[in-house]
């Protein structure tokens, strides 16, 4: 006879409560987005009533689709442009910073490390407003627009590669470098030929993550965009979401979604390839995202 008490005490029963809450959470977090993606293929103007499948809002419509509407595809191009430029600056800057800070002892590097971590947890809106004030009230040779946006994004994101690279440096340990220098390599040569190749997976992972993060950014790019021509997708969504948009906005958001997910998925597969046979690196999703 299996009563509720023995059911409760059975250590092998499946954790039904946890399963239910996990499935519930996944549905709740992903279904709304999937519905929004679905409606980007709606053939009518409505974002709430299904009127049949079409690709009208991607390129079919001559004036309103993402492909034909200037405002929409400018936003998409601006997003990708910001993603590329900001990533290309952030990753080398953060990597060099992390290597330098990791070995250089003293007050200045400690303070810089603290600043870097502070920029990691500071609410984004504070940094955005501060940078906006600098550009609008101080005579600096930077205009609002792409340059300002890139500066803001790099400042906000630079801690990401720095944290990931430092974590990897800690797991590599000093022994490989010491061995190289015992065998006659200069510090620079040991860095170039031993440490940087070992860091490559972490550097690559942070490249992908920074790119995915930058193209999703909203607060910084909104304050630092000069006019409509430098407004990326997230700002476009914010500006038009409550003003009766067409499903073209869903289509734009969907394209952004696919760009970010494609970057992360492809990045993860390449990361797996890069770390094949490397038993010092965490090859799972956790290691890739720097959370383990």
């Amino acid at each position, binding site marked *: 006879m299996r009563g509720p008490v023995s059911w409760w005490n059975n250590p092998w029963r499946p954790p039904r409560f*946890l*399963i239910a*809450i*996990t499935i519930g959470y*996944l549905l709740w*977090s992903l279904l*709304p*987005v999937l*519905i*929004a993606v679905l*409606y980007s293929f709606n053939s009518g103007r409505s974002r*709430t*009533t299904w009127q049949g499948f079409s690709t009208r809002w991607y390129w079919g419509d001559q004036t309103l689709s993402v492909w034909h509407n200037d405002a929409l595809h400018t936003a998409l191009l601006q997003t990708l442009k910001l993603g590329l430029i900001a990533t290309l600056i952030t990753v080398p*800057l953060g990597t*060099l*910073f992390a290597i*330098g*800070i990791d070995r*250089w002892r003293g007050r200045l590097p400690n303070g*810089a490390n*603290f*600043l870097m*971590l*502070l920029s990691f*947890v*500071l609410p*984004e*809106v*504070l940094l955005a*407003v*501060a*940078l*906006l*004030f*600098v550009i609008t*009230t*101080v005579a600096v040779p930077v205009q609002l627009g792409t340059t300002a946006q890139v500066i*803001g994004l790099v*400042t906000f994101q*630079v801690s990401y590669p720095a944290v990931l690279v430092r974590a990897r440096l*800690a797991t590599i340990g000093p022994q490989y470098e010491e061995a190289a220098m015992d065998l006659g390599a200069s510090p*620079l040569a040991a*860095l170039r030929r031993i440490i940087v190749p070992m860091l490559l997976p972490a550097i690559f992972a942070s490249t992908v993550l920074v790119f*995915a993060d930058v193209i*999703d950014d909203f*607060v910084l790019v909104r304050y630092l965009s000069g006019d409509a021509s430098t407004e990326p*997708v*997230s700002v476009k969504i914010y500006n038009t*979401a*409550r003003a009766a948009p067409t499903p073209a906005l869903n289509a734009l*958001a969907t394209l*952004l*979604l696919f760009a*970010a*997910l494609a970057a992360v998925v492809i990045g993860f597969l390449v990361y797996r390839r890069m770390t094949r046979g490397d038993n010092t690196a965490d090859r799972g*999703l*956790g290691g890739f*995202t720097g*959370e*383990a």
Partner: protein
Amino acid sequence: MAVPVVTAPPRQAPPDRRRRTRLWSVLAAPGIAWLAAFFLFPLYVVLCIVFGQIDPLFRTPIPVWNPLQWDPTQFTYVLTHIVGENGVYGQAILRTFIYVMVASALCLLIAFPVSYYVARLSGKRRGLLLALLIAPFWISYMMRMFAWVNLLQDDGLFNKMLSLGGLFSPDVKWLTGQPVVVILGLVYGYVPYMILPLYAGLDRLSTPMLEASRDLGADRLSSFRRVTLPLCRPTIVAALLLTCLPMLGDYFTNDMLSASPKTTMVGNLINDGVQAPGQTGQAGAFVMLVFLIALLPMLYYLRSVTRGSEVAS
């Protein structure tokens, strides 16, 4: 004969070490310069504007660079309007605290069981679940809010679901100043940021420790209460901070899901001040206020991160 062998290494080492020091500082220099110019300096500019003057004609702020000439008028203006008879800002600040506290408590209630389950799971399904779990992390925040704007419209799917095919006619306008919608929107937006660090912490939870507690006679609940919770308390605190801090400056969730003064938060005060002429100093004062409120939790988080890797995010 033995003497040269002993003295040789010290003669070589000093130049080597000196060169190393210079190399590392050269590598770190661009990053340090960048942070100084685009992080530290802007924060100082905010101070100079908050304690600066306003051009009487154009209503533009004039920063005052010398801390000795700082004029606290604008900051005290904001401070005196928080409580008391002119307390126009007090309500928004109180509301922010309530929203952020309720939302992060709900976040924890959702995130903890989910990340606990996935962290304790093994086998093939775990990778897929983990991928699904952190997928929202890389879906644009605006996209996710926009998805809810679609669903919650007056003729949206949510109201259609509530009406059960025309049985009822729920006449709820979800997108005009409903605090519940804003709080749930915050939860929806920030839960992924909590799941990631929680999962990382729970993944490293020592299984032998849990088994030992069960072997020694603790039942399910007391094992959870007396072993699991104390072990992952630093993780929980870090995860809570990582969600609370960005929520403090949030204004866009509110704008997207409510756009009504009934749900104004501190972030909205900052945003409105930035866009209104002549109120730049007040926006700066709010920025400082949020910074000061966030400073203590930020320092706590940084200390726990730099002290041990157990709560590193």
